[in-house]
């Protein structure tokens, strides 16, 4: 398919942007390479969703944000995401493209933990970032959007947990798109060295209902031998933002990567969440919830690829669809030759709240090895009238009964969100969307 939309930003611009940020040569040349590839590579082709008319070119690339002097002064939609009582906050708030707020407990700093915005990381730990940036997880040349992402990367965070360091308190990043037109080309890298463990939670917030914007996000999670990463996210981009979000994990021997993703965007979205279970005994749980409303179109892929022996992958996708929203849920379990004794399980459930909504559950198992176990369950259905009858027979109104059933339906994923405040806020977002 020919792409005739012209790139919105040219080499001169990218060059001066990179220079203004004092970027090392490796990154600058990677940006140029991305720009070039973006001219030739095709767009990603999400199964069963046509994105050729979506806006990926109308956006503003740069916007600064003010420093945040006190968390108390934040607007409410940001403040609700914070666990304000906890003194030991490990928190970054990116306001547009500036670091508005940053704190990391001193004990973690002493242990060598890095939790900083991506540009500081590139300046201060250039080699380390270069080692992981678009290397083991996502490649620059996968498609036009990964290439463009590299060329125009304008934010993100870098998390590095050294060997044997176990972090109890979660690390939290809030990406606040205060400017209604600014694009998010965020790049997030999470590296957990051998025997380490951490919990990371990120929130995307934007309020653009009509203003056009684009999010083109790449996240790379690397769990080395016997490391454990719990990754939680709540995406909440406004209706005007077209979103491409690519979250990818690579798990080595005995490592675990668990995802809990609340995908609450109001605009058109392509979301890919792929985990490569490279090492023997590696494990991943990929859980996502979404609510589709209005006339948005979304395409979600949850995919786990088994390379290591005895690796375990569990996909759970729950979606609620209302109005005339339409979503495709691709669940893909892939077991490569040699990944003996692996187990690939997946479950996709879609609850339809309106006649005009569309929901497609698309379970796929690709198995190239005999000695494995695998299973899938998928369903698309309406609220069970007998459940409603049961609840109403206890005096509960129809409205409240539906609310309870929908919350119940989404609970298996919502309950996995690691930070209490974020979990509660996700519940509230769901409430606002479905009712």
């Amino acid at each position, binding site marked *: 398919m020919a792409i005739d939309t012209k790139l919105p930003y040219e080499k001169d611009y990218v060059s001066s942007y990179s220079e203004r940020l004092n970027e090392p040569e490796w990154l600058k040349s990677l940006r140029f390479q991305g720009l070039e590839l973006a001219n030739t590579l095709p767009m990603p082709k999400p199964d069963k969703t046509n994105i050729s008319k979506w806006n990926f070119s109308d956006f503003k690339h740069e916007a600064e944000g003010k420093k945040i002097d006190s968390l108390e002064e934040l607007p409410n939609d940001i403040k609700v995401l914070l666990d304000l009582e906890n003194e030991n906050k490990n928190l970054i708030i990116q306001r547009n493209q500036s670091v508005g707020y940053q704190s990391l407990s001193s004990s973690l700093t002493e242990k060598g933990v890095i939790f900083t915005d991506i540009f500081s990381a590139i300046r201060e730990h250039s080699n380390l970032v270069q080692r992981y940036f678009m290397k083991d997880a996502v490649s620059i040349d996968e498609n036009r959007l990964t290439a463009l992402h590299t060329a125009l990367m304008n934010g993100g965070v870098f998390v590095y947990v050294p060997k044997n360091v176990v972090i109890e308190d979660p690390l939290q990043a809030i990406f606040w798109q205060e400017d209604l037109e600014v694009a998010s080309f965020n790049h997030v890298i999470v590296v957990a060295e051998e025997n380490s463990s951490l919990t990371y939670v990120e929130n995307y917030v934007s309020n653009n209902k009509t203003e056009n914007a684009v999010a083109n996000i790449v996240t790379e999670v690397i769990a080395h031998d016997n490391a454990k990463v719990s990754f939680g996210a709540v995406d909440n981009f406004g209706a005007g933002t077209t979103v491409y979000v690519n979250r990818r994990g690579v798990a080595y021997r005995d490592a675990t990567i668990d995802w809990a993703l609340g995908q609450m965007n109001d605009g058109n979205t392509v979301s890919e969440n792929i985990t490569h279970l490279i090492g023997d005994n590696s494990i991943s749980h990929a859980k996502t919830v979404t609510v589709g409303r209005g006339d948005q179109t979304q395409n979600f892929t949850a995919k786990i690829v088994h390379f290591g022996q005895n690796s375990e992958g569990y996909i759970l996708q729950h979606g609620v669809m209302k109005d005339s929203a339409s979503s495709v849920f691709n669940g893909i379990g892939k077991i490569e030759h040699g990944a003996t004794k692996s187990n690939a399980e997946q479950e996709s459930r879609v609850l339809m709240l309106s006649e005009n909504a569309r929901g497609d559950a698309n379970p796929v198992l690709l198995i190239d090895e005999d000695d494995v176990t695998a299973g899938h369950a998928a369903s698309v259905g309406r609220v*069970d*009238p*007998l*459940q*409603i*009858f*049961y*609840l*109403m*027979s*206890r*005096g*509960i*109104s*129809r409205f*409240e*009964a539906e609310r*309870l*059933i929908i*919350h*119940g*339906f*989404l*609970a*298996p994923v919502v309950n996995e969100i690691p930070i209490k405040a974020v979990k509660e806020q996700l519940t509230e977002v769901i409430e606002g969307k479905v009712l």
Partner: protein
Amino acid sequence: MAGSTLEIKDLHVTIEDQEILKGVNLTITGGEFHAVMGPNGTGKSTLASAIMGHPKYEITKGSVLLDGEDVLEMEVDERARAGLFLGMQYPSEISGVTTSDFLRSSINAHREEGDQISLMKFIKEMDAAMDYLEMDKNMAQRYLNAGFSGGEKKRNEILQLMMIKPAIGILDEIDSGLDIDALKVVSKGINKLRNESFGCLIITHYQRLLEYITPDKVHVMMQGRVVKSGGPELAQRLEAEGYEWIKEELGIENEVVGQKA
């Protein structure tokens, strides 16, 4: 408070164009326990469900009045708030909603907006009721009926009955699937509610439940009607002799709904 009165008059009910109930008459008043018995497929569950407003059943004729108010005009939740309770033969499973959250919502739905039960008081009452029913406390934090055994579901229905304290309880085969100990516990729960302001309609196949809960009246259903009523001795005779003698007495060849008399 004096009890409520539920009057069922000439009730006709159709499901998917088939008439199941063909003129049921029954009146229950606070303080009274009525047992409804009858062979399989004679319309007992249909009666219970239709009173509560089950979406599948269509009322084609007759009336149901609670203290003179037309129940059939009410939504299901209004019926509940007016004082009706249905303990179901097959309660739904609702995953993701804890039993305790559900119970609190139910209780609050029965109360005025400014008069919601406090969390402390709720927990105290729930703990007491669960103790009384010898239920495992963990059950409250489990999802509503999800993966509950048959007996656990029935106990959970009685837990709700005890906490909601309706004016009229309709219990559909609350004893089926219960072992003897559970049967005693469940009966104990129902008996605890016995007073002037509580009336109960107990659907059962077995006299054994009625040994623990003595009914004031016993009714037998066949072919979608109440064909015989009597006192507790009627249940004892059914236990001893089965239903044949009633069929002979009334000239019924096949007792199931949809058959000719």
